[in-house]
């Protein structure tokens, strides 16, 4: 088996297991209250981390580039209560425009 297929198989199997673990073990049951309280805070914690890594994340370095301007435009769109599609398109357009100059 070539190295490519080793990586594809190992990563694929690991990801299927990661995604499936919770639903397979705990599927359909409500979480214990202590765990439920913690898990309910996962969304704000992870989404905020994703905003950071998608905006300034690089390969072991912080990269401050046009994505920051795109995010700034998104903030304005969100404050103006724009629909999700508009927020996303505005951010991409501003990122692209800033990069073009």
């Amino acid at each position, binding site marked *: 088996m070539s190295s*490519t297929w*080793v*990586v594809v198989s*190992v*990563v*694929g199997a*690991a*990801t*299927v297991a*990661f*995604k*499936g673990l*919770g*639903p*397979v*073990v*705990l*599927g*359909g049951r409500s*979480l214990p*209250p*202590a765990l439920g*309280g*913690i*898990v*309910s*805070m*996962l*969304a*704000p*914690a*992870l*989404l*905020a*981390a*994703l*905003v*950071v*890594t998608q905006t*300034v*994340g690089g*390969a*072991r*370095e*912080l990269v401050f580039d046009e*994505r920051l301007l*795109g*995010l700034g435009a*998104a903030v304005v*769109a*969100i404050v103006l209560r724009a629909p*999700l599609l508009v*927020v*996303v398109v505005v*951010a*991409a357009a*501003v990122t*692209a425009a800033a*990069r*073009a100059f």
Partner: protein
Amino acid sequence: MTGSPSPYREGARRAAAIAPAVFVFGVSFGLLAQTAGMGALASIVMSATTFAGSAQFAALSVLGSAGGIAAAATAAILLNARYVPIGISVAPVIEGSLWRRLLEAQLVVDESWAFSRRRDGTYDRGVLLGAGLVLYASWNGGTAVGAFGGEALGDPEVLGLDGAFAALFLALLVPQVRSRRALAAALLGAAIAFVLIPFSSPGVPIIAASAACLVGWRRA
């Protein structure tokens, strides 16, 4: 739950906002996989089974730079480890036989997960699956187009699409921050990710940031 349009359709509708960007990234993954010598079939199988863009690009970049099998697999696995806590969070609404739960869980990606969260903190299975299916089709369709030598629709970076995902996650985050506790979790998660980015492999900052959800701990 209001009975209005079916939750599947609602999930598909929400996912449509980001599906074109996911498709273009899928095309570029398919194309890059060929330049990295991965082979069309391997790139298509990877998108179908791993279904997580950031991890696939990470594995590809390491493979392409002759960084070794272990390094490529480790990078991708670290990036996808966040799906353990994410899977636990949606587990209460994923029901049915073991195989069905395992299969439905595969449609969980950051975006479908975030779309499916209700204001009360529970998750909507229909929205999760509807959004997940649209994103799955976009990502895999894009990969196939790129893998079979489809012309680039454009460089995702020139199109600014790398700036679209932060905007999406921010737009999905804002309505979640409805309590001091949620605000604390968000700020702490962001701070942990920011501080760790320069010192760790991609993926580690996100896993570490998930520890910020411990602010939700309370005595049972």
